[in-house]
């Protein structure tokens, strides 16, 4: 039941690529065999062509040509703003909820009810509140990321062993320092899970945020492609967002490990 030793570092390096490679190969095989027509499942080489047009062509040569870097920048800004907002609101609220029954009593029911509401239902209201454009996008992304961040921070703060807080208190640590020096580090495993989930869902909700009122962005491209039934572009979108999502996930993890001893030193 112990984690296996990483004796064979080589194998470990290759392992993560096993599933992607197998999926790609079977996709390729299915496409080559002609079992599934390309308009249902595009051929990898078509998707590759679409991707290279989207990423590398001169802008203006086709509907999506060369838009990638502009889209990426725009979307990244939106995702990061939304995610950042969710972090700034979600972590403090979650931690306070986890420790103060009063706050939890007040917020808990409402937050846990709203969690279930589909993001798209907020769109009409968000437009009324924020107009169309960046603010609505950021709001929708932040709303989606808020819930996992909040709920994990809350659970994490609730689990913290009272003896650690007592040890801090007897050493004269005030609430503020106690929060940063004890509560957050001790809740770190939960907090990290929440942040990682939040980051993932921020990208996933980008589509919703870019449905209305913005003209560029990866989410907008996916929705355009959907409108047109361009499955090849949708697959390009899936692959690109998966790659970007993975990079953000790694980056976030690294950043947390750099910034917090507890993220570095706990399993």
């Amino acid at each position, binding site marked *: 039941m112990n984690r296996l030793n990483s004796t064979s570092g080589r194998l470990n390096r290759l392992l993560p690529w096993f599933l992607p490679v197998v999926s790609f190969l079977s996709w390729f095989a299915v496409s080559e065999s002609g079992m599934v027509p390309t308009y249902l499942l595009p051929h990898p080489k078509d998707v590759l062509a679409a991707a290279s047009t989207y990423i590398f062509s001169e802008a203006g040569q086709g509907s999506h040509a060369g838009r990638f870097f502009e889209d990426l920048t725009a979307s990244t800004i939106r995702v990061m703003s939304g995610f950042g907002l969710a972090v700034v609101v979600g972590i403090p609220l979650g931690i306070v909820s986890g420790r103060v029954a009063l706050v939890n009593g007040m917020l808990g029911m409402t937050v846990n009810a709203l969690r279930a509401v589909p993001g798209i239902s907020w769109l009409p209201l968000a437009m009324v509140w924020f107009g169309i454009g960046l603010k609505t996008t950021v709001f929708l992304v932040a709303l989606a990321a808020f819930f996992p961040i909040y709920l994990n921070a809350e659970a994490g703060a609730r689990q913290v062993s009272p003896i650690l807080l007592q040890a801090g208190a007897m050493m004269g640590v005030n609430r503020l320092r106690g929060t940063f020096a004890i509560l957050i*580090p001790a809740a770190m495993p939960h907090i990290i899970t929440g942040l990682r989930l939040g980051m993932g869902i921020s990208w996933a909700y980008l589509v919703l945020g870019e449905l209305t009122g913005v003209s560029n962005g990866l989410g907008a491209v996916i929705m355009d492609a959907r409108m047109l039934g361009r499955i090849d572009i949708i697959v390009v979108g899936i692959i690109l967002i998966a790659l970007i999502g993975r990079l953000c996930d790694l980056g976030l993890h690294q950043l947390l490990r750099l910034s917090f001893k507890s993220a570095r030193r706990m399993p």
Partner: protein
Amino acid sequence: MTTRLRIVGTGRKPEVAPVVLEIQRLSKRFGTHGSGDAGVLKEISMKARRGEMICILGRSGCGKSTLLKILAGFMPPSSGLVRLNGNPVSRPGPDRCVVFQEDALFPWLTVRENIAFGLKGRKMDRGEQQREVDRFVSLVGLTDYGDYLPQEISGGMKQRVSLARVLILQPEVLLMDEPFAALDAQTREEMQNLLLYLWEKLSHTVLFVTHDVNEAVLLADRIILFEKEPGRIKKDIKISLPRPREKSTEGYFAHCRSITSEIR
């Protein structure tokens, strides 16, 4: 790594030192599991004077740790009052430091960082803090282990870290819950000497829970015997052996024997 401290026998503090800690008719009952009306602690009253070293002896489960936790301010008593320098105690504070019976080190901090933790908030420049930490790391014999994490050191080492991180704060009242239970004879003796040395120097008030009668007789000005079910004070024994105490003297043995027979 061995640390041997000679105890210089300074003059004894006068008997009339002011009362620091006062416990008034303190009872504690836990809500869960109808443990009867008896409760865990019943009507404990006692006083500790400035600079007194008090050892508490009592059977497993008689409420010693509970008493210390109430004194520390971690839990409220069901009834009764605790006063520190005349003021009621309600919250934990760095004037009453605890060496816990359980492992209460911060698992994400190294030995050095754990020991330095309480100093961080103090007005003290970094260099001085570092020197202070170095001094205590070496006093508890862990110089080579400064960068280890708690899960990488032995049980006895952990207890020494717990001790150091509290001693470094020089609190007015020290509450120690079996701090030397996991130490071998030699290390234990070193730690006892360290405690006595610092106590002579800083003359803080110490409440020391132990199961070792010899240790109690070696350290204590007074030994308080606890009774079980409900937990209450059975006997309050004054130990007036001169300090520094030698383990081979007849007076020492006599005390040990009488207390041992008392707790049978």
